[in-house]
């Protein structure tokens, strides 16, 4: 390893010292006793794990010493100027969508419009849900074994203050897009946010949810540690996209956990375009026969960005399928990490599981580390994985040049084609267009 190993002591201890400050605003809040217990659980767990180092196999290729070296303050009030508000509304809030907007971790009533959700759809902020619907939240929140929580899941559990609770009732087909938007704009201070979203789809329901994380100023340094828990009841279908374009100096360590019951479909898409260091964990547990999971992802990074995608699909029952395709474009001196795990448990016969990771390396100093991993304990299965790392095809560039297309444009066109292959899998136009807009800056450098 050429990477400098960080001693877990020094820089980590700076971060550990801050835990009390970050937990400060939580003191004196009027939440049920079980919430306090969960927070305590998370805190204990995080103190035990600390910020992971590259010695941890899960973090082998992502060094968090830069993240751990800052002093963060708890997220404060929304501080958007009227011009910024207008901008956010125009760029991100679709008129036809249900918008749930958080600014610096705090719900922004003015930009949001979820007061009157469509029939059969319940949407409330976490604080409201804890007052009005505590039992339902508790069921999801306390679902996973706390001893297995990763460091950042534990941290989120300990420090989350706001979030959203979305419940699509049985047999409801929600056509409107539900858009959870996290905007961070904090000049002069380094804030840390820990939003937690709970998404529950009832039996035979269907919904489209987009979770967006954006930073308005590329110079802002902040930490985002969001956690999204998705529960799909029998025969439910969720189209879930996560689009991330944080500030180029920010740190984003997000986790999405999906729990699938019988015949449910999780149609996931993940876009990573921003942040200095971005880590995205997507853990799917298939716990019902006939369920299907689609995990598509795109990362497009440039300058000295570092993007790390970890997916895990755990087939615990027979007759389920999962399909993953992650594509990445790297420019300048960007670095990408992909780790995909497929587990097939002994009883999960007749599992079909596919995984493919393709990297297009355009910059001279890029680095790619990929580790597709299969752990299979059942025999009647079909599982494949693949990974490629390569450049643009010279023959294709030549073909375009021979037809009068300048080299730079040819490269841009071919890269666009590589990207569109995955973007076109997004069926909702508004989501696809937004994703394309987010990727654009990292592709424009090709023409420069």
């Amino acid at each position, binding site marked *: 390893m050429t990477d400098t190993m960080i001693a877990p002591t020094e820089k980590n201890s700076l971060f550990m010292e801050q835990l009390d400050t970050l937990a400060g605003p939580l003191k004196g809040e009027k939440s049920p006793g079980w919430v306090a217990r969960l927070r305590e659980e998370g805190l204990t767990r995080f103190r035990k794990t600390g910020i992971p180092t590259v010695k941890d196999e899960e973090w082998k290729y992502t060094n968090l010493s830069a993240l751990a070296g800052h002093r963060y303050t708890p997220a404060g009030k929304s501080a958007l100027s009227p011009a910024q508000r207008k901008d956010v509304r125009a760029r991100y809030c679709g008129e036809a969508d249900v918008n749930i907007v958080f600014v610096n971790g705090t719900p922004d009533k003015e930009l949001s419009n979820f007061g009157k959700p469509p029939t059969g759809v319940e949407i409330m902020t976490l604080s409201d849900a804890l007052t009005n619907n505590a039992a339902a939240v508790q069921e999801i929140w306390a679902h996973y074994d706390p001893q297995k929580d990763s460091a950042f899941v534990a941290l989120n559990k300990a420090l989350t203050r706001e979030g959203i609770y979305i419940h699509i009732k049985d047999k409801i087909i929600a056509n409107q897009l539900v858009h959870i938007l996290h905007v961070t704009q904090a000049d002069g201070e380094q804030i840390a946010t820990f939003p937690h979203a709970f998404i529950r789809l009832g039996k035979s329901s269907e919904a489209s949810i987009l979770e967006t994380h954006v930073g308005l100023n590329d110079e802002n340094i902040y930490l985002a540690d969001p956690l999204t828990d998705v529960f799909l009841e029998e025969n439910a279908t969720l189209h879930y996209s996560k689009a991330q374009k944080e500030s180029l100096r920010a740190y984003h360590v997000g986790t999405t956990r999906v729990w699938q019951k019988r015949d449910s479909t999780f149609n996931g898409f993940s876009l990573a375009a921003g942040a200095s260091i971005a880590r995205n964990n997507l853990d799917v547990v298939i716990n019902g026969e006939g369920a299907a999971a689609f995990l598509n992802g795109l990362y497009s990074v440039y300058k000295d960005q570092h993007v790390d995608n970890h997916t895990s699909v755990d087939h615990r029952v027979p007759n389920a399928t999962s399909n993953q395709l992650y594509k990445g474009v790297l420019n300048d001196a960007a670095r990408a990490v992909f780790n995909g795990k497929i587990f097939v448990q002994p009883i999960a016969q007749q599992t079909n599981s596919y995984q493919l990771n393709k990297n297009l390396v355009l910059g001279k100093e890029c680095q790619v580390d990929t580790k597709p*991993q299969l752990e299979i304990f059942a025999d009647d299965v079909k599982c494949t994985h693949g990974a490629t790392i390569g*450049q643009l095809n010279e023959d294709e560039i030549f073909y375009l040049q021979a037809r009068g297309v300048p080299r730079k444009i040819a490269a841009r066109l071919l890269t666009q084609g590589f990207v569109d292959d995955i973007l076109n899998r997004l069926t909702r136009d508004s989501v696809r267009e937004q994703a394309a807009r987010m990727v654009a800056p990292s592709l424009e450098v090709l023409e420069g």
Partner: protein
Amino acid sequence: MRKEETKLLNEKTIEENVLTSRDYKYGFYTEIETDRIPKGLNEDTIRTISQKKNEPGWMLEWRLKAYRHWLTMKEPHWANFRYGPIDYQGVSYYSAPKKAGQGPKSIEEVDPELRKAFEKLGIPLGEQKRLTGVAVDAVFDSVSVGTTHQTELAKQGIIFCSMSEAIARHGDLVKKYMGSVVPYSDNFFAALNAAVFSDGSFCYIPKGVKCPLELSTYFRINAAESGQFERTLIVAEEGSCVSYLEGCTAPMRDENQLHAAVVELIALDNAQIKYSTVQNWYSGDKEGRGGIYNFVTKRGKCLGRRSKISWTQVEAGAAITWKYPSCILQGDDSVGEFYSVALTNHRMQADTGTKMIHIGKRTTSTIISKGISTDESNNNYRGLVKIMPSAERARNFSQCDSMLVGNKCSANTFPYIEVRNSTATLEHEASTSRINAEQVFYLKSRGLDMEAAISLIINGFCKEVFNELPMEFAVEAVRLLQMKLEGSVG
């Protein structure tokens, strides 16, 4: 129809799995007087081994340095398998047939008992009865008991002898290359080996010589409560070419015996080394009692430009196999290859694969790995492809396929791909599945019985790797696989 067939296959596999598989045919033990040192490991043990072999001072120094380093190391446990603690003091580190005597000897002087033992293994040591076109170095427990064809090879300047002989006669060469690919500080088992290695084979192919014979070493563990720690070193000078084969067996015992070998290959400009292994150590019984712990460090260095190192392995034995034959592709345009078939049955555990470290420009590597797991075994592929910043336009292709037979086994793949140079092109693909029921049905409908059908399909599955083996070994490998699979599959 097809559904029924699948069901039938399912039932049959489970049913047949319960049946005992055929006995391990090399499980016999040879009664022979041995010269062995007491169990235990300390600096005196190492001095005794060194003394017994009349080694020069520098060798002993190196051993002791390795031992002192080993004491500071911890036994690694990152591999994906379980085993009880190894008692390093409960092993005798030197055990040799008494009549083998000291130093080099002619093949005719080999103890008839020993010769009989090797004949039983299918390795005739007498020059008259030689295997056509193969020169053999036979290693029995801790020492080499004889090397065939030495004079014939010497005419071309090729040195092929036991490591002890090489240390005595070709000290300069050994000193220059030993530890240059696998230093004693490399890992826990390499350090242990460097401290206590008792013998092994040494080959040196001079400039421009194409070795006329296949060189081969046959490793046999015979004594109980001992381990085998051999070291093999192959040096191919500029423009030379050699093919080397290795085979191994051991008696059936309820105890676990440790085999911690080190193999180092060095290829200079335009040289080619092909290293093939058919590993058939005793793998333990159905309940997983006994068997060899095969913890081996094998590494080749393509030091010269346009050099090539090719590893081919058929891993069919040993209770635990833990090895990653690797290539350091240092010379520009050098080539590394790895072809592997790993078959596990009973409760065998295998964690094997390769490492390809690309350093030179335009270096290329190919990895083909086929894993077959049956019964309650666990088969892992773990590989690393690393492209260093200096490796302009490096190329790698990897393919690892696993086949599962029976529903109590497991197959895992852990490929690591690390790219530090953006001009590299890499492709990796892997698949895991069971035997295709339609293919079985097709063959059965043409009159083949279940066993023959499955054997044929598995043969086809491994074809790419078998094609890389020298002819005699390929035949042997096919037979070995058939024998192992017998009773394992329906």
